[in-house]
């Protein structure tokens, strides 16, 4: 099953590459195929980790447990639903000038975004988890601004501010947590969830709690982000009816991102 993890991550990347090509038809077909295949894979993976089983790949850098599978399943479903919805939704605006390049850009960003979203629940340590969240922010900013209208760019701006503030605080939380672990785990360790759980009773309480306080703020940022999305969606609906789909998908991103620190909670709340 471990190979499934790698295949799952390769699918959206491949679709991104194909979407950059000339043909819109090919882009649509590739996105759809990748999304449906990814959804099927997430279902298979979710079934396989039912009784506490875990999968790891790439030398423990990727890891899926039953908690992660819940979020992976939701992401996979939203990926598939988003792509299906986008195809019909975008075709409504097909008569416009420059539509083809717009749609190709849109599909490549969409696939890339879904790749980063699938990456988040598969991460096995706080460092790469943070990096994956960073990636989702960068790519979703591109996706929000894909229209290049006033409203889209303003929404992107608002989104950047809120999201990046959360990331800054998240970084501080990761740093503090890492520093908390240097006592029991040594100076140069990889901040895996499992090593925190193993060393939980030896971590300094206050420091870990503070890190998770910041982590909560980070999560709260997810909720703010949802608000920004809703605002952006409304504005864009009035200005440009075509881009509801990415934002709806991004609303799913909020749901996912919100509990993304859950594996960490196990380390903190020992």
């Amino acid at each position: 099953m471990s190979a499934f993890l790698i295949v799952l991550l390769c699918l959206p990347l491949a679709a991104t590459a194909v979407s950059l090509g000339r043909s819109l038809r090919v882009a649509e077909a590739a996105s759809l195929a990748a999304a449906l295949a990814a959804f099927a894979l997430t279902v298979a993976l979710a079934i396989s980790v039912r009784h506490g089983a875990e999968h790891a790949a790439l030398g423990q850098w990727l890891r899926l447990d039953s908690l992660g599978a819940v979020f992976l399943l939701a992401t996979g479903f939203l990926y598939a639903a988003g792509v299906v919805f986008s195809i019909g939704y975008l075709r409504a605006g097909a008569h416009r000038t420059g539509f083809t390049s717009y749609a190709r850009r849109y599909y490549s960003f969409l696939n890339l975004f879904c790749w980063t979203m699938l990456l988040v629940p598969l991460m096995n340590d706080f460092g790469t988890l943070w990096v994956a969240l960073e990636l989702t922010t960068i790519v979703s900013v591109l996706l929000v601004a894909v229209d290049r209208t006033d409203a889209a760019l303003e929404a992107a701006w608002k989104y950047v501010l809120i999201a990046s503030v959360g990331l800054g605080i998240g970084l501080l939380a990761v740093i503090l947590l890492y520093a908390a672990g240097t006592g029991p785990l040594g100076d140069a360790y990889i901040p895996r969830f499992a090593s925190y759980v193993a060393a939980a009773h030896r971590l300094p309480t206050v420091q870990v709690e503070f890190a998770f306080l910041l982590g909560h703020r980070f999560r709260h940022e997810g909720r703010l982000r949802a608000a920004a999305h809703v605002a952006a969606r409304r504005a864009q609906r009035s200005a440009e009816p075509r881009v509801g789909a990415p934002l709806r998908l991004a609303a799913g991103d909020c749901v996912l991102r919100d509990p993304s620190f859950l594996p960490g909670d196990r380390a903190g709340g020992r």
Partner: protein
Amino acid sequence: MPQLSDGLIQVLQVGTILVLSPLVTGVIARAEAIVQMRHGPRFLQPYYDIAKLFRKETVLPEGAGVVFRIAPYVAFASYCIVPLLIPVLTSFPPQASYMGDILGGGLILGFASYAVSLAAIDSGSPYAQLGSSRLRTFGALGEPTILFVVFTVALITQTDLPYVFAATLKSSAAEIVRPAHLLAAAAFFMVVLAETGRVPLENHGSTLEFGMIDEGRTLEHSGPGFALLRWGSSMKQLILYTILADVLIVPWGLAGTHRLDDVLIAIALLFAKALGIGAAIVVIESAFAKLRLYKIPEFTVSSFLLAVLAVITFIVQRDYGETRLTVFGGIATVVAVIVLLLEFMLLRSQDVWEQLRLYGVGSAAIAIVAFAAAAKLHAGDLYAIGTITIAFKSLVIPVSVGAIIRNLDVPTRVPSIIRAPGAILLGIVLSSFALVAVSRLHVSGDGVLPLPALGIAVAVIAVSFLLMILRPYAPSQLIGFLVLENGATLAALVIAPGLPLIVGLLLLFDLFVGLLVFVLLVQYFGVQRTAVTTDVLNRLRG
């Protein structure tokens, strides 16, 4: 080498201040003129001025009474007494120094100023009275600032005798880089600027009566009385510089024995320290504009609040545990305090160019910390990359954001939602909260990590939120975010020596910020010439 008695040393203390003070004033005036591409007066010009005035006759304003006539002598006598109380030349206290503590010295300085103000009122001249009433009004916040600075140092040293202050600071360099002490020194420096009538409060040596505060009071004086006042104001300046240098910043270089050569060296070093502070003043006078009169309370309020923050910092200090002083720790703490002070300047600033410059200076300061970390660790190539990244950031981001703003042709004034004193008060509250919160963390550093600097870094992050909230203007919000990123960088560098993963994440974060700024914002500002005030975003509300 002959030994000097206590009495002779005390005469020398007063004599040094008496003789050197006009020279310090002259050198600062000349240096300032050279920096500003003027020729400027001779170094010795203040001596010639004083000598000339002593030969002139005294002209009394009509109706001026005895107060007006004796005030210059009272003031001059006061300025001659204060050097007896403070460590001018020796690190050991001569007998007369027990006459008064540092508050006593402050009272005598205040008395001199009070006498001059009384004389100004007695003269009946409207300009002189205006000067004295302004000085009282603005000085009302200068005095509590001095009190709080004294309290901070007194809390650290358990006494308020200036000689013991200096001795405690000298005993361990760790005392000097305490955040509490650095903040107190910064607050006192602002008071020195105010008390000596320097920019940003007053144009020193200007002849425009409307802008005068300190100098306005002496307009009606003439002859020997005026000479004493001029001389006295030079002495006051040197006395304040001496307190700043010998008590608060660099208590080294004082004579430890009664030997003549030690004392002579101490005199030379005192002159050098005074010139060092003078250099800072020359930079400030050349780089900053004078504040409008109504903005001056902002300056005094800021210095007062800094002093309050110093006391708060001291109170939470012991929760951080004892820290051993290292070169890295010292640099990190000093830079953290500098970055926090720059952030308060950002809170006050209403000009986007000034904000970009302040941000650039802050980033450069953080690059120094990264460099210190690189030098500390022998296998520090990652840190070396970090140094380059941050230094690059301090140049490239301000320049490119500036270029975008210039292209956009938008107003460069960035109004704040609330006024500067309120903003700074909120900032102080937030930083105190951050300091207290981090002090409860008990990060295990075995005394090696400069943990107070971590508290300050978190304070920088907390205040950056305020910066973003208070400015409904996209470029300023961007700067607020960049400052937040600087705070996170600083926190990581303080906590990270020897933790390569953290530094790796940090570099990624810098990269991320760079990507956001260049990819998205260039698109945002460059492609779409939309309004950049976020008020427009209100229509995106639900």
